[in-house]
């Protein structure tokens, strides 16, 4: 009802505008599909589209918000039939099937514009396939270790920076009757985060990407070293028991209650931790420790993106919308603490004063020389991601099966990348 009223109002404005000279000439219909079904992101997106509407009153914008999980399967249908003009998705390998199938529009022309090429350089790689860009980013967020500062203080621990300090800290936490890390691997991807960090710290960003691209054997000694490091933590009891039964949300209470001291997670974990009653004095953040001093630090920072489907009808308006989304002001606005609470992709934007966002921003902009990864299930092809994350979960439950698991992953690799 509300939107109908809005549309009538827009039509009225439009008819009035016909008599007066108009600033923007975009007309027709712009259909936007979003997966931001959670209340806060949804409101952010709707407000942003409303501002775009005000700039282009002649444009008839229709927004459809689809449940986040359902969107992942529906995108396959709506890119081929009844296609919207703009749709959101994820960067890197996650968009590859659609790029390969010719379903995403090449937007390299946008990236050639000074406004974008000068300010969005940090995420360009994540949106490039075959030397062309297939969309624009609208938000990203850091990963890292969120920990209970009060527990660290109580045990006299400080933020670790090396693997040795990490292990020493963890031992003290375990001696105090707690576990070091909470994690819920029921949906597998959380284990992918651990693998990302351990492998990038052990073997470096480039090795990690080569592994994701299937160029390196899973039975390589360097991969085995990553798993050996992981095993050190598992064997000392660093992770909570029964993590294979929990989702990442179900693993939060362990940290809230103080049974676990830290959580390797994306910045989206901060909101539920605060809601559960942890104050900013109790909660803090540190960058995942260095393991191999010879490799440069690299971070996970998944990027969410907007794309124009190849079958879109109003590509001109869609391009205008993409330009609008990545503009410095919009980026500052939608990523601030009261909206998405994440990091803006535009270098000219300002980052919210929130302490986690500030720390994350500093870490990614100044202390991640190795590179920025998207996340294991976005960097590796979907099939390999699935098989390997299942292997990571099994390894975390039965670390002694490492050789068997790696052999299985190696078999999967020869099958998956051959095709």
């Amino acid at each position, binding site marked *: 009802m509300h939107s109908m009223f809005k549309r009538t109002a827009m039509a009225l404005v439009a008819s009035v505008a016909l008599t007066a000279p108009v600033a923007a000439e975009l007309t027709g219909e712009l259909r936007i599909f979003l997966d931001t079904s959670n209340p806060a992101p949804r409101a952010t997106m709707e407000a942003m589209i409303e501002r775009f509407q005000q700039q282009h009153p002649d444009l008839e914008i229709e927004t459809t918000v689809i449940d986040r*999980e359902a969107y*992942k*399967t529906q995108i*396959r249908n709506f*890119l*081929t039939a009844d296609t919207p003009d703009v749709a959101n998705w994820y960067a890197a390998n996650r968009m590859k*099937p*659609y790029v*390969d*199938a010719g*379903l995403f529009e090449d937007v390299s022309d946008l990236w050639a514009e000074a406004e974008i090429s000068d300010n969005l350089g940090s995420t360009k790689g994540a949106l490039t396939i075959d030397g062309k860009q297939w969309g624009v980013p609208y938000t990203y967020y850091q990963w890292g270790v969120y920990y209970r500062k009060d527990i660290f203080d109580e045990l006299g621990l400080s933020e670790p920076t090396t693997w040795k300090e990490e292990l020493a800290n963890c031992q003290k936490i375990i001696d105090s009757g707690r576990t070091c890390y909470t994690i819920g691997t*029921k*949906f*597998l991807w959380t284990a992918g985060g651990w693998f990302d960090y351990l492998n990038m710290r052990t073997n470096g960003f480039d090795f990690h990407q080569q592994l994701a691209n299937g160029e390196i054997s899973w039975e390589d000694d360097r991969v085995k070293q990553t798993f050996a490091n992981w095993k050190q933590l598992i064997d000392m009891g660093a992770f909570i*028991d*029964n993590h*294979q*039964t929990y989702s990442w949300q179900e693993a939060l209470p362990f940290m809230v209650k103080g049974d676990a001291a830290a959580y390797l997670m994306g910045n989206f974990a901060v909101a539920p931790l605060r809601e559960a009653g942890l104050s900013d004095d109790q909660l803090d953040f540190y960058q995942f420790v260095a393991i191999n001093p010879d490799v440069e630090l690299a971070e996970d920072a998944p990027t969410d993106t907007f794309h124009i489907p190849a079958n879109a009808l109003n590509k001109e308006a869609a391009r205008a919308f993409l330009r609008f989304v990545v503009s410095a002001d919009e980026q500052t606005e939608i990523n601030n603490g009261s909206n998405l609470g994440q990091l803006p992709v535009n270098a000219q934007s300002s980052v919210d004063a929130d302490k986690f966002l500030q720390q994350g921003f500093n870490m990614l902009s100044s202390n991640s020389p190795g590179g920025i990864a998207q996340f294991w*299930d976005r960097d590796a092809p*979907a*099939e390999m*991601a*699935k098989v390997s994350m*299942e*292997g990571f*979960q*099994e390894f975390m*439950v039965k670390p002694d099966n490492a050789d068997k698991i790696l052999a*299985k992953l190696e*078999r999967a690799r020869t*099958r998956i990348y051959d*095709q």
Partner: protein
Amino acid sequence: MTVSAELDSESWFHRNQQRIAPWLFLAPGLLFFLFYVIIPVFQSFNLSLYEWDGLGAAEYVGFRNYEDLYWEFSDRDAFYISLKNNLIWLLLYLAAIPAGLFIALFLNQTVKGIRLYKSLFFFPFVISQVVVGLVFTWFYDPTFGLLNEFLGLFGMGPLNVLGDERFVTYGIIFAGLWPQTAYCMILYLTGLNAVDPEQIEAGRLDGAKGFRMLWHIILPQLRPATFIAFVVTIIGALRSFDLISIMTQGGPFGSSRVLAYYMFEVALSEYGFRMGYGAAIAVILFLIMLCFIAYFLWSMYREERRH
């Protein structure tokens, strides 16, 4: 149109009315069956010979998908585990039949408020499988679950049913038995209504009671109910999907998958778009079901002939 032509056509219809009428009535059902079952069966088989991600062009690969399944089987990989779990499901799910019979016999009495007890026992079948799955997930929860509270009373250690690859399938089957038993119970309750009291009387005069009465007098009369219970339980076991999806998503590390869930995972889930491979699994599942369907049809045909 001339009058004679009209008469002609009318008379043709009249002549053949007896033969046409059943086909007319069958037509809607047959058409639906054709379009939603028969044609898709052949389409699936056709698709299983291709490699297709659901987006681009499909590539013909002959029987390679089946070959891959064979290698997965011999490697004791996902396909082997799914197949093995399907067998466990088939066997253990049948426990719903005697359990349903037992509850039906127990409830088949006239006491005050028996309708209420009957509906309480039937309740699990009414609620959605999703709810059943959630309830049992909480029941099995290793830290807060009722099961472990209960085991704790006897000093037994915490058991992570859904997180242990040795117990997980049994745990899910147990959850599935709850509604399935209710279903079988209802089938037997209706069957018990049709049991001939005179035969019981006669049996009693001949000195039969207890188990002998049940085995020789009651059960033979419940044959039709047993047959239906058997059919729905077998089919239910083979298409078990919702509980697995809700309770474990096939985990931990894929050890609770069955063929139906594996097919979904490979072809339609977040990380899968191997339509051809999924179709190949579907064909295997179909062939397994076909054995049972053929048996059911054959025994139904035999029953018909007898009457």
